[in-house]
């Protein structure tokens, strides 16, 4: 199962857990499965089937442009990262 690092800003939805494990072939599937155990996670991260503004996703340390469609391996690590821009 993929390991999902939960941002501290939404850990109230995971009883304070910083990491969760879930199945899924894509980031979207993994989030859907986490939401079954921790309702509210999906809506915190996704709006209208797109990532909420200001969030980007790293899978195994690589930030891909496919966002929710990024493929996930069983041993992948997924991180949600605030988009930092400007300058």
């Amino acid at each position, binding site marked *: 199962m993929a390991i999902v*690092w939960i941002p*501290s800003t939404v850990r109230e939805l995971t009883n304070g857990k910083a990491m969760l494990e879930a199945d899924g072939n894509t980031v979207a599937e993994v989030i859907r499965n986490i939401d079954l155990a921790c309702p509210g996670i999906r809506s915190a991260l996704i709006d209208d089937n797109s990532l909420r*503004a200001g969030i980007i996703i790293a899978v195994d340390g690589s930030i891909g442009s496919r966002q929710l469609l990024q493929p996930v391996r069983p041993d992948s690590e997924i991180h949600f990262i605030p988009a930092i821009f400007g300058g």
Partner: protein
Amino acid sequence: MKAGGKREDVLRVIGTTPIRPDGLDKVTGRAIFADDIHLPGMLHGKVLRSPHAHARIKSIDTRQAAALPGVHAVISAADFPEPAKPTSKSADISDLATNCMATTTALYDGHAVAAVAAENIHIAGQALGLIEVDYEVLDAVLDVRSAMADDAPVIHENLKPGFFFASTKKAHPNAGRLEYSDGDISKGFSCASVIVERTFTTQTVHQGYIEAHISTALWDADDRLSVWTSCQGHFDIRDQLAGILNIPMSHINVIPLEVGGAFGGKDSVYLDPLAALLSKKCGRPVKMAMSRNEVLRATGPSSGSSMRVRMGVDDSGKLVAADISFAFEAGAFPGGPVSAGILTATTRYNIPNYRLEGFDVILNKPKIRPYRAPGATQSHFAVETVLDELAEKLGMDPIELRIRNAMKTGDRLVLGYPCPVIGGVELLEAVRSHPHYRAPLDGQNQGRGVAYGFWYGGGGASSAELSVNADGTVQVCTGSCDMSGTRMTLAMQTAEALGIQVSEVQVTTGDTQSIGFTLPAWGSRTTFATGIACITVAEKVIAKMIERAAGIWETDNSNVRFDAGVFTNTNDKLQALTFKQLAAKLDSTGGLLSDQASVSPQGVGFQLAAYLVDVEVDTQTGKVSILRSTIFQDAGKAVHPDYVAGQMQGGVVQGLGWALNEAYIYRADGTLANTSFLDYRMPTALDQPMTETVILETPNPGHPYGVRGVGEVSIVNPPAAVANAIYNAVGIRMDSLPMSPTAVLEKLWEHQAAQL
């Protein structure tokens, strides 16, 4: 030529220093900037701005202004359409529109309330005086702690807490809050042998670009809009306009021009929608230009801040805990750089237990916009000053403390994922071994300070189109505005990939209807990301040219080798064509070639820098003089080392201005007092010695030639380094910016009083 596979020792163009091709035109006035646009029938627009920091707009009467001979159009918020639904990447379009033109409330001194287009700027100015605005003046709030007080005036009745991450909380009617934490900070501090806690404040500062905001718009009879503007990302300007004006993106063409400085501050529309709506109303092109007064009052500076930092270190010099709380100004609308501030506060060190708290605070100042490594200069001022004090209390060399805690490749970032390849320890060792670090200080009240800094940098979407001419020259069109010589660094990467001379590559910036989507020139991304677009399209063209060579030699494509600009038949080494020779045969073998690439590279190399500075403090006047200045930065691979050095020096100059002089000064009624460069004190050449540059190169595996962005991180360290140098010189810990003569004198007097 796969990503990361190009060996540095075979590079021919990357790492050289060709003469800048646009320099002569810029110094002789031939280069075309936004103010050089003159269209037939063009009118001139001016903006009426609020003289109040916070006021309800009870009514606006524009009838007299509209009736003035020579006036062709007058607009106010009533002329703005309902904004379009924002795209996923857009900022809040409604806030953006309201920032361009106040609706029911003027939220800061200089907030636009109406605009006029007239035959000339004199008539337009006269018309502004005929617009009657009835204000109800409200209490204004001008600093973050006051804005978060229980009895503070509420600026937005329905504040959305901001454009942050996942679930930023509304912590106060004027503030959103976010937090990152890990470990157990109580337990961490219990292991500390030394703990330092300090509070810091910084003031609002402006990027100080020389060229003001200027925009010319033509709304034609077919409802197509053309805009000539000074910006750092014309696609972003187009998308913002499409949202505010609620028209299709494809109906807008934004034409970029030379940029007279931006530093993050030209990523947002101000005049563009006003000029567009005025043009729509009168059917003629309308040009609008800000004065310096308007730039300082009404465009987006960087945040003033209030910061509390508590950090602990054990006997061995290992950082064990950090508890950090930053309150950053957002300006009149949510979305300041506090997120980046807290995420750069400690990222370059490994700290097992931390709590990073940020408040994004709304107040009656212009909407904050990015400024070179946004949020990081403030955060580094606080954290690097505390680190200096920790090192002192431990009796440890400040570089040694930083090396013992330095984040290395693979270490977990605050964000959880492993750190990509960085050379932080190598950079710090370079500081420690540099002659400047050990040179004696030989005067009274002289001191030395150091600080170590981090910035993420940006990747994302870039597009490039490449055409091969019959004479073997090449033209490349990209979607990146050139703010810092990037046409040259893109030409160099293209030439490297094609195996030709850089003088044979001409790079231009296409308008939004000529080239594919490209993110703005922000986050030090252009040489990195648009560079990869250029390399990618060059590789596509080379692949096509291999097919042509194979056709000429009647062999299989796989038998054609391309290396260093020469195509060779591996089955017959006598059959070889240079790029130029093959280009001459393209027309007769299927036609001349061109191709396009749109990429979204994400292998961003983090930026690291350290700054070493010697100062002398005049204890009679409080003036701090810079004696010696050395900046160290990891460029990954310096495409054009002179340009890299220029970026490093430019960042240092701006950082020193932030450290010593620059600040918005507001009157008690909330109006800005220093609205010119005479009063807003930026550094001049007389204030600073030449800054020595030391470029390190830890290749970024996310770029074919190892390139990292270099445009931002050099600004983050000077305030902290100067503060540490002042302490080293005269024993006072500076905790507020700017460290002006007045501020230094007050600290000196406090220090002297405490010693009595």
